């Protein structure tokens, strides 16, 4: 009977080996091969040729900048929304989570529409022309985009702070400012550091924004895309990704350490509405103005995408048209259907497989379960470009000839969402009373029927929420998918991305309206579910994880 215990873990281990380890190793091998021999030539090029060496520093600096700026913004919005009684708090919190349905590369579209060479504000309103294509624009868009992550993480930690602890400080004579300085901020520090590291990770991996808005500025991710798609230099693309991977793994290692210490000092969860902190007026005015500015920008971006889709020709002719929407039923239809099918399958598979793996690693003792946990979590840290390049290298020849099939698309999206499925599975199982399963076993149920009759029904709220998030994320992803897609199975996100890249702003906007709609439906479904009891607790949990996993 012993071999049966290892059957399922072995299958899962093999799948992870093929779809996580093998592609990653392929990239590393490719980066080290020069023609037929092994060598460091690519790495020497990457660090000495100015065009590449500057991308390493550029990526690090922009990622650090985006991390700091969006964490400060996230902290300011969290403080304003949850720790003050200032007006418009609900508006601010909606604005802070809104970028969830607007992926960064769609924001760039609005950014160009508003501030570009022929932009509505810069050109039409102010009459200035300037070159928006630089690292500053990348930093700007990434900061706006990633503030959702920082807001969700920091506010989750902030809501977990026992309000009695702050009251105790007041009672002991601490002024409101001292309460914040000596109690609130130190208690949410794990959240702040976690947010910083996570945004750093996401910014490093983002290739869309720098590609569209960077101009001559390149990051490791965008340079690797250009090396692959532009010049088809597979070796250099792999090398840049390998360097990127090293940086991401280091950051991810710090991030998991912060997560671990954060959970060790367990704060009281669900302590209700936190008490406000009565800060001095100038400080409150500053916080509020920053929130207002941020929220206005986010809504302007949303409205601009909307307007751009109805504008005849950007910069030249701002008159109304429906012409761009002709693309939707023509070229777009296939992509829309593919998107819906891929996203649905991904969310279903990811939540089920996530729960199964979570069950294995939390409930069953077997050798190698930590390894399975690690391999499932790893794609969380892997940049999309690395996975894309890895999948091309790994699956365009025997024994795994998958290039061009829909299976490879599903594989890549499932693997990318699996860390979320595993984490929410682990967390829901951690909350479940194990003796319920023991009771089922003592009543004669096999492990399998206990899983289907007890574990799965009890996990349903969490599963539904994380499945919906996986749906939203998959609808919007370009990350790895763009490398494995071929003309016969196009998806919406890639269509939008390519249209923006080509400069077909109107078409891109029209298509992104459909994409926003799909994502918004997913998000609305989540919030509708969250109104109903049990699921509510899962929403914030998955939300924070989702934001970080996207």
């Amino acid at each position: 009977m012993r071999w049966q215990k290892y059957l399922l873990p072995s299958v899962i281990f093999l799948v992870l080996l093929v779809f996580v380890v093998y592609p990653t190793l392929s990239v590393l091998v490719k980066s080290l091969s020069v023609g037929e021999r092994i060598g460091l030539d690519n790495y020497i090029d990457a660090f000495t040729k100015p065009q590449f060496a500057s991308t390493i520093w550029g990526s690090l600096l922009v990622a650090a900048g985006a991390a700091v700026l969006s964490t400060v913004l996230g902290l300011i919005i969290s403080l304003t929304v949850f720790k003050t009684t200032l007006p418009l708090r609900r508006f601010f919190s909606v604005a802070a989570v809104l970028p969830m349905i607007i992926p960064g590369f769609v924001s760039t579209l609005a950014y160009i529409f508003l501030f570009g060479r022929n932009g509505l504000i810069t050109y039409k309103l102010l009459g200035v022309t300037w070159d928006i294509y630089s690292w500053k624009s990348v930093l700007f868009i990434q900061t706006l985009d990633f503030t959702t992550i920082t807001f969700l993480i920091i506010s989750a930690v902030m809501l977990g702070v026992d309000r009695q602890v702050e009251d105790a400080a007041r009672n002991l004579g601490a002024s409101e400012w001292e309460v914040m300085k000596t109690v609130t901020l130190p208690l949410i520090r794990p959240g702040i550091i976690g947010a910083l590291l996570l945004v750093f990770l996401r910014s490093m991996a983002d290739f869309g924004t720098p590609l569209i808005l960077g101009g001559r500025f390149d990051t490791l991710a965008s340079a690797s895309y250009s090396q692959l798609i532009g010049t088809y230099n597979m070796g250099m693309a792999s090398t840049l990704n390998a360097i990127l991977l090293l940086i991401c793994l280091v950051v991810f290692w710090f991030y998991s350490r912060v997560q671990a210490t954060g959970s060790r000092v367990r704060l009281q969860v669900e302590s209700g509405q936190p008490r406000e902190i009565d800060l001095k007026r100038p400080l409150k005015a500053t916080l509020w103005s920053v929130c207002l500015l941020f929220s206005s920008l986010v809504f302007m971006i949303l409205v601009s995408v909307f307007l751009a889709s109805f504008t005849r020709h950007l910069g030249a002719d701002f008159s109304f048209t429906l012409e761009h929407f002709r693309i939707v039923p023509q070229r777009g239809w296939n992509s829309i259907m593919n998107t819906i099918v891929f996203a649905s399958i991904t969310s279903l598979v990811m939540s089920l497989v996530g729960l199964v793996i979570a069950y294995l690693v939390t409930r069953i003792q077997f050798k190698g379960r930590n390894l399975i946990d690690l391999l499932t979590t790893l794609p969380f840290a892997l940049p999309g470009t690395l996975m894309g390049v890895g999948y091309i290298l790994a699956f365009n020849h025997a024994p795994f000839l998958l290039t061009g099939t829909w299976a490879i698309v599903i594989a890549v999206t499932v693997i990318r969402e699996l860390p979320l499925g595993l984490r929410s599975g682990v967390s829901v199982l951690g909350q479940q009373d194990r003796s319920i399963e023991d009771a089922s076993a003592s009543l004669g149920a096999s492990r399998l029927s206990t899983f289907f009759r007890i574990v799965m029904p009890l996990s349903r709220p969490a599963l539904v929420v994380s499945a919906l998030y996986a749906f939203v994320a998959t609808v919007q992803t370009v990350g790895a998918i763009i490398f494995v897609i071929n003309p016969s199975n196009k998806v919406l996100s890639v269509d939008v991305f390519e249209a923006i890249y080509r400069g077909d702003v109107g078409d891109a906007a029209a298509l992104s309206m459909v994409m926003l709609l799909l994502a918004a439906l997913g998000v609305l479904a989540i919030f509708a579910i969250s109104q109903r009891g049990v699921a509510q607790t899962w929403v914030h949990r998955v939300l924070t994880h989702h934001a970080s996993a996207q």
Partner: protein
Amino acid sequence: MGTQSADTPRLSSVDLELRHIDKSFGDVEVLRDLSLNVDKGELCCLLGPSGCGKTTALNVINGLIEPDRGEVWLGGNDITHLSPQRRNLGMVFQSYALFPHLNVYDNVAYGLRRRRWSRSRIQPKVKQYLDLVRLGGYEERRVHELSGGQQQRIALARALVIEPTLLLLDEPLSNLDARLRADMRDEIRRIQRMLDVTTIYVTHDQEEAISIADRIMVMNQGVIEQVGSPREIYERPATRFVADFIGQVNFLTGVISSGWLWLMGRQFSLPTGEGPEGKVICAIRPERLRVEESGSGLLQAQVEEVTYFGSVVRYRLAVKEVVDTDVILNVEVAGPLASHQLGDRVGLGFELEDLHIFPGGNT
């Protein structure tokens, strides 16, 4: 308490008075015209079921909640609108609310630092109060490494080290297991007496209140029902709620008419001019009922259930002679004296003065 070492401070504590406090949250009236006063050096329990407004009353006193109406007077000063920071009250929270990111020393020193004390003054003070709660030597520990009882002591030391004029305790024992609870209760009482600090102790546990308080205020639905010493509260409950909430009690319906009380088919003569007329509720404590030989006593009954508690034995008796249905009474007898078995017929007696009579209808 006997020995008091020379360096134990006696805090210069003061008296407290609440005058006509009203407080509502939305439509819910939590406190209604609440007035109370606590004397200097007294330990006063605010006792009531959950949701009766006792924690709100505590938060009005410590300034975390501002009342809609009424005044808070502390040592002769009106502090109604003073911020919590400036009240100098010591508070022990139900969850202890220790700062999880600070060690034991920094937790206790927190209030002194906010008072801008110098390091050289803080150090001996913290040591003194850690010794007082018998946790000297724990300075460097992280709070999550401590047991519930130890956390409780740290919370107490942190509240006392600022030498407050008043100590507030919000359900301080509710997170401890039964055995530790009794120890901590005695500990709190010892320290409170030693420091002579005026103390308000909020609890829903009547046994805890009776065993620790100088005076008990029984609260119900935002109103104080009775104030008195534990003995008064137990032996002379002023209302039916108090009789029911404190200790075990048997309720019986009766009728009073022109000086006579009709109860369980019997007729009792009441001292003239006392009590209400018409339908009444009579309450009697189980230990005030006397079990006698069958045939003697005021009433005849049958043992329906025997529960052994060690020090006492509780009988459940059915009084058979009542017209419509059996009246069930709980009776407590000291363990060694209890000899009756299930089904035995017994006689039952009591003193009329042990009967508490409240106006009202059905039990």
